């Protein structure tokens, strides 16, 4: 495209793929049959969706501090969602929520 540098194009591509994972996560959350499988869908959005989004934004920012914050946010979301999903699954187990049988 006229006027767009390689950087912008790459950044846009990364952001779009990140968005795809977000939508995939959302659709999975809606369509999958039980609590435990929905948790799997959720983590796709967290890890890959946000990660690709962050990397896309990294390419288009000038400020180093903002770049550090972006990566920090992604790492934080990764780690805390790891613990959160485990806690949710544990509670679902305790309450004996049904497991879907095919």
């Amino acid at each position, binding site marked *: 495209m006229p006027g767009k540098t390689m950087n912008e194009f790459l950044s846009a591509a990364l952001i779009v793929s990140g968005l795809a994972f977000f939508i995939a996560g959302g659709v999975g959350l809606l369509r999958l049959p039980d609590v435990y499988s929905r948790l799997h869908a959720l983590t796709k959005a967290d890890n890959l969706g946000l990660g690709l989004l962050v990397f896309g934004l990294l390419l288009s920012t000038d400020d180093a501090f903002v770049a550090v914050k972006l990566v920090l946010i992604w790492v*934080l979301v990764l*780690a*805390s969602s790891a*613990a959160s999903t*485990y*806690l949710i699954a*544990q509670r679902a187990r*305790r*309450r*004996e929520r049904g497991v879907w049988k095919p």
Partner: protein
Amino acid sequence: METLAWILLDTMLVTALLALGWGSLASKDLRRGVVLFIGFGLLLALVWVRLRAPDIALAEAAIGAGLTGALMLSALRDEPGTSSEAAGDASVRSTPVSASLLLTLLSAGLAIVLGAAFICALDRTDPASLAEEVFANLGVSGVSNPVTGVLLNFRAYDTLLELAVLTAAVLGILSLGPARSGYQASGPMLSGLTGWLVPVILVVSGYLLWVGAKAPGGAFQAGALLAAAGVLLRLAGHPSGGLPRELALRGLMVVGVAVFLIIGLTLMLVGRGFLDYPVAWAGSLILAIESAATLGIAATLIVAFLCGDPGQRPENHETADSGVPLAKCENNRRNTPR
């Protein structure tokens, strides 16, 4: 085409906000209502950002995402029926018809007043605004973030009184008696999470406090974030949520108001007015006040989550006569028949 996109985005945000707000209020199952309310808080933070108000968005994110959800879920612990492993959840008691009618009338009246005010605001061609005044005087206020300038310099009296109100509130909470029984010592997942998350929260809270002078941030946001760290500690099994006991706790309660007053009175003693900062010192004084206020606000919010005095032992607590229902917050499951 672009304005259409903005309209679409705004419509989505507003619809989601209204849906979550309505859902959380209309929910029979209280737990469901609280979870919807947490979502509402998240969405509200997004709306604040859309309205170009990042300071408020920061505070809303800290309070709505972390604190209110935890507070309300913790309050639901005592609901009969939630303590069993069965699917019975806390449910709301139905309100009498007269109360519903009165509330409907009041809400309708409020909606009419707000609607009229909105229409009047649209008509004004030259909105009187204090914003020019603020920006004109921002240079001598000691900070470059206009929100902090207004809160800590131009309207410092108001902030002092707000902190005093918080102190009064925490005195009220402490007088409820001992804090509730805590939570179980956490399993490896939660301990691991707390182990690294609390230090990161501390650092980010300090960052928000520091950056408040020139960018959105400041004492309240930092204090709310710090309180969330205390809440997390408490949820992970720490008995007092990171707060010290006795004298140190009392000190934390009053440090915000105390530092504010000391600075104000000292300025009076040297001949200036109450809280009239000399221009060269304004920045440092504001930072000192904000640091104290952060600690005070965090301590207040953590005590609110603890719902009582962490220093008192429940066994020594004087209970009321049996038969008189005690305050919800106290550990009265053994004393009061349900």
